[in-house]
């Protein structure tokens, strides 16, 4: 089956092209069959390739054609397949399929049905290319491709300018990171002479020593790309706004797959990062800081999707933390489990929004437990996994991360401690959501619970969120093995108990009301802190003041083309001369004679200069 691997991205791509060409004329059923079917077949294909691979775990490479050949620069349209690729492809096609299925119902009323599936299919294709690429340039193709698809889908409902604004923000902010990444590619190629990932890592290990400056710069540049795409500090601000897109899109792109591309990139190039311990430390710190910042912010949001968005940022922060401490497999594991439970949560929220007349504010919901049981259980399971309650998938992956962080020599315990705080907050905000939305009194009328096309994905994802922790992912060949020894037991106990404390806190504050925090919240410090957290730590504001507004200002000043002023000056000068000279043409003869006389005198003066001296 392995030689069929190119079909995996091609199928969704073809379907996407077909849907675009025939968007107006295709009946809805055909659109749905094409859109879902292509991803389903890609998933099946992935599955069979994966079976083969698990039977004989041999990484392989496949070149379709040489993309371009200039001198010794010859990246190919080529795929590389190993355990990591398999995990990523499975998540993309698997979760992707479920979300496509969910969408067929979710988007049923939308007039741009075909356009939606065209974009979504294209996204799957691009994302697959990203994870399958054997060289960084092709990866970059997928990387930008998913960016554009994200842009298109966030701005899917284009009639509303706010959506367009959010879509542009998403694209431009990630583009900043991408540009850093592109510079990283230039540096890597210039220094190492190849962009092939395997070759690159090999060459780097030959040419560079651990701790050299060049790998550090290269890694930081790549990290720039990763930070942008994965919405980490300081380029995270686009993700909450990106929730403007249809909710399944948020589930697929902004939770399960695209935003984790940064994690994938670092994991894929871990050979380079190992050469730059400082860069790894930066990754870890960024991850931790992001996860805490986002968790605090999530706590303050009232928009259901924004809560989930910040939660995503926070969780990816965990993954970065994992990468930074060298827990590669744990990071990818968390990536996978996160894909399950966060997709679940988003789809669940999508179902709520769908049946609650596009209501986003959690405080206008409430009491949905009985009215939407499927959704309620989805949320319960999803939140449990998110909060890393024991035995859920999230528990296994997060636990691994925290433990390996603790083991890092030096700052390890501190990172662990930070992670714990994050975990506590995660539990609090996720169950705050559950309690506020599903318990208490109903505040809005619903239109019933989900249909089967929504229910099936929800149930499937519930299952995965519960059992995902038991999956064994074939990453042993990809990453260097982590040290086998375990830290002291108390560390593990603490890690397990913290989320439970969080849930308890959430229960006390948001459900039973036994813990009254209103005094704290309403105090002036509390208010301003709340405001601060709510606004995402003011980072959006900071960018607005530092970058966006100056850019607008600059372009407004420049609009009149300042360079033209130089040419206008030249023109004005010529016109002035023209004016003066034309004025001199008075038409009066005596004046003309005078000018001739003056001219004669001038001529004589000039001509007689030297002879006068000679005389």
């Amino acid at each position, binding site marked *: 089956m392995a030689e069929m691997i190119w079909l995996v991205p091609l199928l969704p791509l073809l379907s996407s092209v077909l849907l675009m060409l025939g968007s107006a004329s295709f009946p809805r059923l055909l659109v749905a069959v094409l859109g879902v079917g292509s991803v389903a077949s890609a998933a099946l294909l992935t599955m069979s390739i994966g079976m083969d691979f698990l039977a004989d775990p041999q990484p392989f490479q496949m070149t379709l054609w040489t993309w371009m050949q200039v001198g010794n620069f010859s990246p190919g349209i080529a795929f590389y397949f190993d355990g990591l690729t398999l995990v990523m492809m499975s998540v993309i096609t698997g979760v992707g399929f479920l979300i496509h299925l969910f969408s067929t119902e979710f988007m049923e009323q939308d007039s741009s049905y075909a356009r939606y599936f065209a974009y979504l299919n294209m996204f799957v294709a691009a994302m697959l290319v990203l994870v399958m690429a054997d060289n960084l340039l092709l990866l970059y193709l997928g990387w930008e491709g998913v960016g554009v698809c994200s842009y298109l889908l966030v701005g899917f409902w284009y009639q509303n300018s706010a959506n367009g604004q959010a879509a542009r923000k998403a694209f431009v902010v990630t583009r900043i990171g991408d540009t850093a990444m592109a510079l990283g590619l230039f540096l890597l190629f210039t220094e190492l002479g190849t962009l092939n990932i395997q070759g690159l890592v090999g060459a780097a290990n030959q040419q560079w020593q651990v701790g050299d400056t060049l790998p550090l710069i290269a890694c930081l540049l790549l990290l720039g790309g990763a930070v942008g795409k994965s919405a980490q500090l300081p380029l995270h601000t686009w993700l909450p706004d990106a929730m403007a897109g249809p909710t399944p899109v948020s589930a697929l792109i902004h939770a399960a797959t695209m935003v984790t591309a940064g994690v994938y990139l670092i994991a894929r190039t871990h050979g380079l990062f190992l050469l730059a311990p400082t860069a790894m430390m930066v990754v870890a710190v960024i991850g931790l800081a992001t996860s805490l910042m986002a968790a605090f912010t999530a706590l303050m949001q009232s928009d259901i999707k924004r809560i989930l968005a910040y939660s995503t940022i926070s969780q990816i922060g965990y993954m970065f933390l994992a990468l930074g401490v060298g827990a590669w497999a744990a990071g990818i594991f968390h990536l996978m489990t996160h894909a399950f439970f966060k997709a679940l949560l988003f789809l669940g929220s999508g179902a709520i929004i769908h049946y609650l007349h596009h209501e986003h504010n959690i405080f206008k919901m409430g009491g949905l437990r009985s009215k939407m049981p499927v959704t309620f259980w989805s949320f319960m399971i999803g939140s449990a996994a998110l909060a890393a309650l024991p035995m859920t998938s999230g528990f296994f992956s997060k636990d691994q991360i925290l433990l390996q962080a603790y083991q890092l020599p030096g700052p390890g315990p501190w990172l662990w401690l930070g992670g714990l705080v994050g975990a506590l907050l995660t539990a609090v905000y996720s169950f705050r959501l559950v309690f506020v939305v599903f318990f208490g009194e109903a505040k809005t009328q619903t239109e019933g619970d989900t249909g089967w096309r929504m229910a099936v994905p929800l149930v499937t994802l519930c299952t995965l969120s519960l059992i995902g922790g038991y999956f064994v992912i074939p990453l042993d060949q990809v990453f260097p093995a982590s040290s086998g020894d375990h830290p002291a037991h108390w560390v593990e106990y603490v890690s397990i108990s913290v989320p439970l404390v969080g849930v308890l806190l959430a229960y006390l504050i948001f459900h039973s009301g036994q813990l009254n925090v209103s005094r704290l919240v309403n105090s002036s410090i509390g208010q301003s802190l709340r405001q601060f957290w709510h606004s995402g730590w003011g980072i959006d504001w900071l960018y607005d003041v530092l970058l966006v507004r100056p850019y607008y200002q600059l372009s407004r000043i420049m609009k009149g083309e300042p360079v033209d002023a130089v040419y206008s000056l030249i023109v004005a000068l010529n016109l002035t001369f023209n004016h003066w000279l*034309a004025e001199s*043409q*008075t*038409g*009066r*003869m*005596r004046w003309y*004679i*005078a000018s001739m*006389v003056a001219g004669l005198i001038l001529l004589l003066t000039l001509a007689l200069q030297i002879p006068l001296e000679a005389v």
Partner: protein
Amino acid sequence: MDGLNIPLNHILLVSTLLFSIGMLGLMIRRNIIFILMSLEVMLNAAALAFVAAGAHWGQPDGQIIFLLILSVAAAEVAVGLGLVLQVQRRFKTLDMDDANRMRG
């Protein structure tokens, strides 16, 4: 030639003076008749210089040119006076400052 041996430069100076007077007249007179007269003065200044130079070199050429200049001046003035008549008829004035319909 004998008794009257004025250096060439002196005569040239005189003719230059004459030329300048003519030029000045051109510049300050507004009446076309005076303008034509000033032109005559200028041309005659040149003619005087020719005669003097011819005398200096002992050649007849200077005087021949003098004659030519006379005839040229006559022709110029003849046409000029013809135009003056037209000017008087059409502009009702001889003041050349009024003839400035074309400018710019």
